[in-house]
């Protein structure tokens, strides 16, 4: 009898422990994956991986994806998708490079790509809300093609190299702090992620973005201007795509029309690996950062170990499926223990 009771209390305790742990796994599970990857990197390449030379490359290599992903995250939170970001990146980059070549004032070249991105974002947002296109997939598939085409038209389809210092600074510059050179791209990503965290967690508009993703009907009857909020989400996402174009232009000191092909898929991957729900309303900025790091570290570690580049793609695919299926299992366990 008493054994049965104590067993029962033990199970109950175990269950309540599990219930209490779930929110933390929810929040920090993906960071655990990042730690595992750091460990794998450190073990397989002990002399190279944890050196400043290697680690200081990561921000530059991953800044564009980090910037695209945070914009994509906002759109995915609304239960949307933006397929155009890779093309917008290229359009912004090409326009900047061509205008730089033609002697446009260098200082104006910094806001310009962001404005281009915002314009395409506005078109996406208006197409979705005012033309009542059935799904953001459609309108952004359209602008994916349009932006890519216009980018080629602007440049005649050929790469342009040589950009002014002020543009290069954004993608490849360093800020010396003591003896350490802090990459500008790292600073940009840090500032953006903190900014987006505050925006999404502590502003009314941020809260409304989550609400729209959770239940658009509830948002509407609560007096939230759903259309305006959606348009803002796409404009923000476009702005990030434009900024990513500036970063890639600065980093490569050029504009090339094939830039950013498939970049939208990397951004979506980072968001999904980071635990955001593809159906909207769920996910965190920290998760997105972790998702970006997982993809970036995976590439870095595989490169260091001389693994063929095609395997990277295979593994990223595996990680996406694993991360999301773990998420599904966790949710099932979570609801079963309610």
């Amino acid at each position, binding site marked *: 009898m008493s054994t049965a009771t104590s067993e029962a209390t033990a199970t109950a305790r175990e269950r309540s422990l599990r219930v209490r742990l779930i929110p933390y796994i929810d929040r920090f599970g993906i960071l655990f994956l990042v730690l595992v990857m750091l460990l794998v990197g450190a073990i397989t390449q002990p002399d190279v991986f944890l050196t400043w030379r290697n680690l200081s490359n990561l921000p530059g290599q991953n800044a564009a994806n980090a910037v695209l992903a945070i914009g994509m995250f906002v759109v995915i939170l609304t239960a949307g998708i933006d397929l155009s970001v890779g093309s917008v990146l290229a359009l912004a980059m090409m326009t900047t490079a061509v205008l730089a070549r033609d002697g446009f004032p260098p200082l104006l070249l910094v806001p310009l790509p962001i404005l281009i991105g915002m314009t395409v974002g506005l078109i996406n947002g208006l197409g979705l809300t005012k033309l009542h296109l059935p799904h953001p997939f459609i309108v952004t598939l359209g602008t994916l093609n349009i932006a890519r085409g216009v980018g080629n038209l602007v440049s005649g389809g050929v790469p342009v190299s040589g950009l002014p210092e002020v543009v290069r600074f954004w993608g490849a510059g360093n800020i010396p702090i003591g003896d350490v050179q802090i990459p500008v791209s790292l600073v940009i990503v840090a500032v953006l992620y903190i900014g987006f965290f505050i925006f999404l967690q502590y*502003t009314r508009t941020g*809260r409304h973005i989550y609400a729209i*993703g959770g239940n658009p*009907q509830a948002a509407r009857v609560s007096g939230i201007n759903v259309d305006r909020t959606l348009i803002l989400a796409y404009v923000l996402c476009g702005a990030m795509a434009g900024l990513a174009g500036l970063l890639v232009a600065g980093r490569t000191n050029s504009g090339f029309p094939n830039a950013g092909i498939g970049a939208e898929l990397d951004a979506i991957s980072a968001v999904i690996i980071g635990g955001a729900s593809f159906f909207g309303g769920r996910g965190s900025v920290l998760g997105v950062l972790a998702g970006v790091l997982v993809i970036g570290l995976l590439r870095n570690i595989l490169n260091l170990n001389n693994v063929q580049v095609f395997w990277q793609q295979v593994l990223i695919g595996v990680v996406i499926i694993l991360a999301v299926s773990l998420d599904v299992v966790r949710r099932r366990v979570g609801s079963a223990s309610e």
Partner: protein
Amino acid sequence: MAREEVPVIEARGICKYFGAVTALEDVYLKLYRGEVLGVVGDNGAGKSTLMKILAGLYPPNAGEILVDGRQVHFSSPRDARDLGIEMVYQDLALAGNLRIDENIFLGREQVRRFGPFKFINNAESLRRAKEHLDKLRIEVKSVRQRVEELSGGQRQAVAIARATAFDAKVVIMDEPTAALAVKEVRKVLDLIKDLKNHGIGVILISHRLDDIFYVCDRIMALFRGRNFAEAPLAETNRNEVIGWIMGNRSPVAQAARILDLN
């Protein structure tokens, strides 16, 4: 039957067409402070459409709405909410991914100002939500729970808490007990009685005559988009109301209705 008091909300001659379909034709409705009005009618009688017009979700094609005797025009639910007209929707209109307090204050978040910026004040939001739920004697484990974790009855309670969080004058409820377990129904109905005791006018749409006869002061029936019959609860009975829903009117009730409208 005629009351001197100004109705808290009144609809006059409301018409609503969806294309060639007439949803409402010349419909009248009055609701007084602290009164619970039951609205009955068959499916498609126009109950929900009328409520959505009162809540600002649809504009009427003709007719007027008066709040405290003054004519108003709602171009969105926000306009109606600003005047204290709240609706609890049949599908509850809650965001399951948000916390209880976040749902209660959705669209009217508690904010703190920092210069030109406004930031959500979570501590205040949680505190006020808890306070409000306590006032309505609604029990939840924690206001931090996500709404998707709640039972049907708890969700209904949250939806009602949401509707009454800001000095509501009128709360419109569309089938609030339809999806509830028997045990939970009584709680929601008692909650409606509480609202009444706080001086709030309640319009209750329900198919369940048990609910109607438990909480309502007055019953009004719509039939094919028109006013059909109306009576104080004390002057009618279940059989008569069932007749109204099916389109049968007793001469007595008809006379009462004509007297009331005049």
